[in-house]
């Protein structure tokens, strides 16, 4: 303006927190997505922490390599953790295709974004299908919310030798309830993620983001999808490995 000295309070400042700009230099929607993911992390953490503290407060627990040793539709037993390994691989792959979609969005390459988004959606559906198969298989053995296999000999297969039936039953009940609840919550997040991805892909197809000039929306739903993958990594570790 003029050469007159301005008092400090009237100076136009351009530091990050002086107003008129995003202090974290991100778009509002992206920052809000991060904070939503943090809150969702609290939800899943509380579920996993209850699982952990309940499990280690019990004298026994079903062995994961004994419960999860089938490949539904192919092998009834003898393939410990193979199916869940496949599920983990599918979800990580879909995260990679999602990142590639975001990267293509940075280059404003509409065709590539569509390709990678469709692959991500397919990966999501494949994971959901696998999880449905896993649930169906466990259910056919007698597991469900508030339900465990009625045959004592069947139940014994999931535990070490020499555990009293009462302890097996208590642990199996807790295991079943926690398994279906936590994987159910996670599966629901995968499902909503797939729906959101479909909506965004349709938007990309009709050129909404091309007109807007930015594929930032793809980045934002990408964050949600990566979060879903991240939760699975933890669920996989706590239920199947530990």
């Amino acid at each position, binding site marked *: 303006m003029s050469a007159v000295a301005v008092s400090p309070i009237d100076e136009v400042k351009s530091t990050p927190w002086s107003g008129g700009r995003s202090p974290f230099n991100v778009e509002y929607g992206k920052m809000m997505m991060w904070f939503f993911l943090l809150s969702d992390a609290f939800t899943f953490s509380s579920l996993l922490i209850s699982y952990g*503290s309940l499990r280690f407060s019990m004298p026994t627990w079903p062995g994961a390599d004994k419960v999860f040793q089938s490949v539904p539709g192919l092998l009834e037993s003898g393939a410990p953790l193979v199916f869940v390994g496949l599920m983990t691989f599918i979800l990580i792959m879909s*995260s990679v295709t999602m990142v590639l979609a975001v990267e293509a969005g940075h280059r404003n390459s509409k065709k590539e974004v569509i390709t990678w988004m469709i692959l991500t959606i397919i990966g999501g559906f494949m994971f959901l299908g696998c999880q449905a198969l896993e649930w169906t298989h466990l259910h056919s053995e007698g597991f469900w919310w508030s339900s465990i296999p009625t045959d004592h000999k069947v139940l014994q297969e999931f535990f070490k030798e020499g555990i009293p039936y009462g302890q097996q039953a208590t642990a199996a009940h807790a295991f079943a309830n926690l398994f279906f609840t936590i994987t159910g919550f996670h599966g629901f997040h995968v499902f909503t993620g797939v729906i959101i991805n479909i909506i965004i892909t349709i938007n990309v197809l009709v050129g909404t983001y091309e007109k807007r000039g930015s594929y930032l929306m793809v980045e934002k739903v990408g964050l949600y999808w990566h979060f879903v993958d991240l939760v699975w990594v933890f669920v996989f570790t706590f239920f199947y*490995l530990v």
Partner: protein
Amino acid sequence: MSTENTAVHTHDEEHGETMTKKKIWNVFFILLGITTIEFIIALWLVPKGYIPGNIANPVYIVLTLFKAFYIVAYFMHLKFEKIGLALAIIVPILFIIGLILVLTNESHHWIDLRG
């Protein structure tokens, strides 16, 4: 300057850091490698007794935290964001991890409380 947060541009252009396709696939192979190690431990080393179960468990958790770091830092791009945003996410998560450790430890004592 005040139009900056309504301007449509990728903030990558500002600090020049971005994930190239090469780096994306690199991180994928790192994740695949860590997962493979976890499977080797779970399906070979532990059943054969080379590693006892109570050593394997913390190992799984540490490996999982590594995977989480790579996903959050590179796939979710947090490594390239402003440190303020990164800390706003990371510090609460550190508290959660603390809670996990405390409650897992605590729960070992609950066995004695059971009938």
